[in-house]
């Protein structure tokens, strides 16, 4: 690849789930993609934006553009952060045509990880292998905001030994929603338990998601209530080679 590709690593991955970032690195490397990690990156600003602090979110957007604008492609292992940049940033600058244009230019060059692999690199088989049944949870922003739901499935199906099984209500929200899960824990718990139930019912050996937030939510719920039932990020899954556990 001659393009300059940058990695944008969400806060949740950086702080809590760094191995997802490492998995992204390894998978890209396996596919001969040279990626850079711009050191000055901070955060997409989704947290403040979703609370309703639009003005503050503009600082995040401005900084993001400063850092990433010079790259041909920006890859991010999170659907919601990608959607924030792609869809929310332009709307933050309705009163600033210059900034709006910068945001729009960026919007066309930011990709969620699986989307980047399939749509940009044209890859389907990443060389991953996992023997067992896998269910895929469609994260809200990934599937409905970015329209990414076939790409991860294509990648999962191509993995050696993997059978992709149906997850009932697979595109129903797992109840994370960032601050939502903390402000409305009871509702959030009811939602994640419904998701866990679908997973159990699906008969899958492994649940794969494309969103770190969902991973945290579903993962910590499973750990407490259904120990042994595993959930992996799509990058971790694609990083699996031969074993049953990519971690």
């Amino acid at each position, binding site marked *: 690849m001659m393009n300059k590709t940058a990695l944008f690593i969400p806060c949740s991955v*950086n702080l*809590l789930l760094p191995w997802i970032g490492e998995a992204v690195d390894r998978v890209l490397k396996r596919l001969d993609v040279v990626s850079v990690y711009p*050191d000055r990156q901070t955060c997409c600003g989704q947290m403040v934006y*979703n609370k309703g602090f639009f003005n503050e979110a503009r600082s995040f957007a401005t900084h993001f553009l400063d850092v990433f604008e010079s790259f041909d492609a920006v890859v991010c292992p999170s659907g919601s952060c990608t959607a924030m940049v792609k869809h929310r940033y332009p709307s933050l600058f309705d009163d600033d045509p210059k900034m709006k244009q910068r945001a729009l230019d960026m919007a066309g060059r930011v990709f969620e990880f699986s989307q980047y692999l399939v749509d940009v690199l044209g890859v389907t088989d990443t060389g991953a292998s996992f023997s067992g049944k896998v269910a895929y949870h469609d994260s809200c*922003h990934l599937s409905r905001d970015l329209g990414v739901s076939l790409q991860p499935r294509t990648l999962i199906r191509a993995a050696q030994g993997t059978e992709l099984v149906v997850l009932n209500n697979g595109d129903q929200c797992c109840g994370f929603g960032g601050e*939502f899960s903390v402000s409305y824990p009871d509702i959030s718990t009811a939602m994640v338990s419904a998701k866990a139930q679908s997973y159990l019912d699906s008969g899958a050996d492994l649940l794969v998601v494309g969103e770190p937030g969902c991973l945290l939510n579903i993962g910590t719920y499973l750990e407490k209530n259904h120990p042994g039932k595993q959930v992996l990020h799509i990058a971790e899954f694609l990083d699996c080679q031969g074993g049953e556990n990519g971690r």
Partner: protein
Amino acid sequence: MDVKTQSYVTEAKKEMASPASRTFLDFFLPVLSAVREIGMTSFPDPAAAVERARAIRRSSVDRLGELLETFERNAVKAGARVFWAENAHEANIYIRDLVNRHRIPYVTKGKSMITEELGLNEVLKKNQTPVYETDLGEFIIQLLEKPPFHIIGPAINIPTDEISRVFMEKAGMDSASTDPVVLGQAARNFLRDKFRHMRLGITGVNMAVAETGSILNVENEGNIRFNKSAPGIQVSVMSLEKIVPNLDDALHMTRMLCRNGTGQKLTSYVTLDTGPRKQGEKDGPEELHIIILDNGRSRIYDDIKTREVLQCIRCGACINVCPVFRQIGGYPYGWAYTGPIGKLLNPLLLGLDRTRDLYGACTLCKACKTVCPAGIDHPSMILYLRNKNLAADPVLQGEGSTFAERLMSKTAAFAATRPRTWNTAARLGSFLASKLGPCHPLVSAWTLKRTFPSLPPKTYRDLRKHP
């Protein structure tokens, strides 16, 4: 109708623990959504049909003032009387005076969200005028004095023994039964007598056609038809956004309303009224009163960001797919409208200060927006409401932000452009959270059913720099 939007969290907890609600929510909502998907396939190109519907609603709302004037002119020409009510009080008084002027012994009503919004039943009750809801679901919850659970099935969660009890007590049923068919028959018998002797019927309006001055209603039971056929006086209340430009648009939107709502190609009955009964006709109202209700909508209209909510046609699709509604049902929304559309309409009509949990308790999953045939972007508007609330917007009665919220967001925004500060703060923050987190009351609610994520020794950033 009482405003109970502030007990959202407690009501939600109650509902999540209620087996009756659970059965309905877990089973029927997914079924309703599936039926909707089948219904939509009867359009030759469902996506194009949705796009057309969205365009019709957008343009109708855009031309609202002009279309309302045209509608009024044509409705009056056809013999209807049109009354403009700026608020619920004006509408209620108009109806009450009509009832008193004609010495109406009781009134019957077809199902309408709008009269819930008006609180009309309470006003008539105070006037000593009995009101009979005639939609089966509405009839049941009226007898039980409960709010509607769902826009399409107001009483769908009520156990049959409860219905049986209240029917025996208040609707003349002789012997107990838990058979829905027997209960339905009992309601039919009771209400039939009301239809037989009714003198004033009240309905809502699903659509008002500007070009012809007609009003259109959609239903399955036939109660609205009775309310429009049997009495001497018909009062139809429409919120002002119900307008569509012409008959062709009305037909397309009717298709959409039915197929996207109940999944039926068309509901059992669709009626289009143009003026009252004509000379020589045997039935139909001698007087047709159409009330155009504002009740805060022209203010919503004034802000082009909130205006979009007026495109809603109340199909209910967003409610059925909402993952939060699927857990808590309709009661927590605490007022006339529930589900995603209730998260917008209730705050916009009641004020942001007492509806915080409505626009708060949303994961922004966009399931609602995806199925909305009216082109409403609920999540974006929810964010807008959050923003207006923090900004203490005077029109929408925002509360303003707390000191802590301001501090957090300002600090974050400051650090966002300063990588070093950001990283130090983020590390420190997550370290503190990991130490203190499990004790914090909010976090302990999370950890009740989940483990608390442990903090890895190194961040990704550290690993990348010093592998």
